Every structure is written in structure tokens, then in C-alpha cells.
């Protein structure tokens, strides 16, 4: 379960953000996680919950996740494809049979943070 390591990385960034902005408590964190990132949202939430017990800074924080779809584009004909799930993903253009370029879905980002 590498979501533990991901949660730890989130906490490291949050500590930095809190220090830079004079926050003693973080109340809300918005995350963007792509469906091709390899992160299981439930496992990440579980890992973040475990960290809440250890870190007063985030003990009351609400973590909100926006999942992003997988998008890919054909460099030849410019057709855009969207896949709901990595398992359904076919990265070949139906018209040109060329490999598609993945343009979204690998995201693992902290969008913004609220605190006081």
C-alpha cells in the first residue's frame, strides 16, 4: 500500500504550506488524483485518517478528492479520447491505429488548502 507514502508526502507539503502562511490548523485540503496515477482513493483516505491522529495540524482537516479521467490524444488526427477507468483504456487511435499520447489521468496534486 504505497498510499501511506503518498499521504506522508501530502503531510510534508501541508507542513510547509502552514509554515509559509502562518497556519496553526488546516481545515480543508483539495486534492486532484488521476485515474491513471495508481492511487486508490479509499486507501489514501485511510492513510490520511491515520496521520490525523499523529499530527495536530491536520487533525480536523477535511480532505476532498477530485478524480480526473484519463484523456489521450492522437498526434496524427487530433482525436481526443476519454476513459473512465485504466482497465478500459485502449491507447490506440481507432482511425489511424497510432499510439495515443496520454494528456491527463496521471495527476497527483494538492490544489488548495484552507486553514487558520
Amino acid at each position, binding site marked *: *500500500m*504505497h498510499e501511506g*507514502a*503518498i499521504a506522508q*508526502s*501530502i503531510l*510534508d*507539503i501541508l507542513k510547509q*504550506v502552514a509554515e509559509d*502562511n502562518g*497556519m496553526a490548523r488546516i*481545515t480543508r485540503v483539495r*486534492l486532484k488524483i488521476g485515474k*491513471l*496515477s*495508481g*492511487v486508490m482513493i479509499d486507501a489514501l483516505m485511510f492513510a490520511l485518517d491515520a496521520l490525523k491522529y499523529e499530527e495536530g495540524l491536520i487533525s480536523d482537516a477535511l480532505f476532498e478528492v477530485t478524480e480526473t479521467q484519463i484523456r489521450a490524444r492522437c498526434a496524427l488526427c487530433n482525436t481526443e479520447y476519454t476513459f473512465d477507468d*485504466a*482497465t478500459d*483504456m*485502449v*491507447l*490506440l487511435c481507432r482511425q489511424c491505429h497510432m*499510439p*495515443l499520447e*496520454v494528456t491527463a489521468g496521471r495527476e*497527483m*496534486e*494538492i*490544489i*488548495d*488548502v*484552507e*486553514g*487558520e
Partner: protein
Amino acid sequence: MKRVVVERKILQRNDEAADIIRKRLAEKGIFALNFMSSPGAGKTSVIEKTINALKNSFRISFIDGDLETDRDAERIRKLGVDVVQINTSGACHLDANMVLKALDKLSLECDLLIIENVGNLVCPASFDVGADKNIVILSVPEGDDKVKKYPVMFNVADVVLINKTDLYGLLEFDREKVISEIREIKPDAEIFEVSCKTSAGFDAWLEYLRGIVPKEIL
């Protein structure tokens, strides 16, 4: 109440460390391979056989990532190459910071650096370790349903080695289905079908490596 726009990659520190690795290896002219697979797919056996075949052509170093023990590192050390063991003590993957620390323990007087990741078909896929090529091994006994079950791993593969092909025919394994599913998830991945037991397919794999590893002792 204050709202701060962060817009930062969660794994930014890992990615920065991976960039440092790439830079250090490039300065030394070292080409790096990152081997990933589930436990028991044959990473160490493939690496052993590959090093044996190439050790007279290239100077090779090896970084072994394992939860516990240095058994794999010992196997490879016997081949006479520079070896560093990383025990992740519980972590299910290597990250770039671990590899960066391991680099300091190697002489780095080599042409080819082989990294054996922790046996796991999920977690290592999310962490860039600064290698030039990701090599993913799928072995026949694991079954022919693995590509679609672990799409993130196969999507990061530059090369897929289908290993233990001596078991084709003995086990239910639809090789055409596997190859076509790899093509769907990573159309430009190189695919080699190999057997450590019979050596079948190794010539093509080794020829590919000789073609991509830049420096060769004459």
C-alpha cells in the same frame, strides 16, 4: 480562515530526486534499467542471466530493493558486479530518494545500472526512480489476466518481458491475448518472450539491450 492555492505535485520531492539521479547518471554516461514485477515473476533470475551474458561487454552495477534480506543482492554479487542493497523495511516500492542514497554507495564506474524494484505489481509504478527504461516482467504462472488488472504498471513499461515461457502449453495462458492487451495499454512497449530455464528468447532481449545501452568497452 485563509485559503492558499498550492497547485503542487504530491510527489514533487520524489520527482526532483529522480531528476538528480538522471543528471548524475547522464554525466557519467550510465544507462539505467528499473525492473518491476510481482514477487516470484523472475526478476532476479532474468537479471542474473542478463548480467552473465553482458558482463564482458559492459561494466554493470546493481541496486537491489527488497523488503527484507540481502538474498538477491548476494546472488548478483557472486557475478562480480558492484552491488548495493536497499532494505525498504516494509515499504512496498523503491522511491527516488532511496535510489539516490544507494548511488552514493556505488563507485558508479559503470555503463549500465540495473535496479531491481520491490516485488509488487502496483506500488512501484507510481514512483519515478530516474531510470532510462522501465522493464516489467510478467510470468506465465501468474495468469493471462494480469495486464488489464494492473494497467498502471503496464502503462509505465517501456519493455515487457513475458518470462517462464517454457510453461506455455502446460498452463492456461493465452499469449496472444496478453500481447494484444499490452498493445492496448502501452502500444510502443517492446515485448520479449523469454525463459530463464531454457534461455529461449534471450538472444532478442540481449540484442535489444546491446542496442540501447550507449557505452561499450571495445
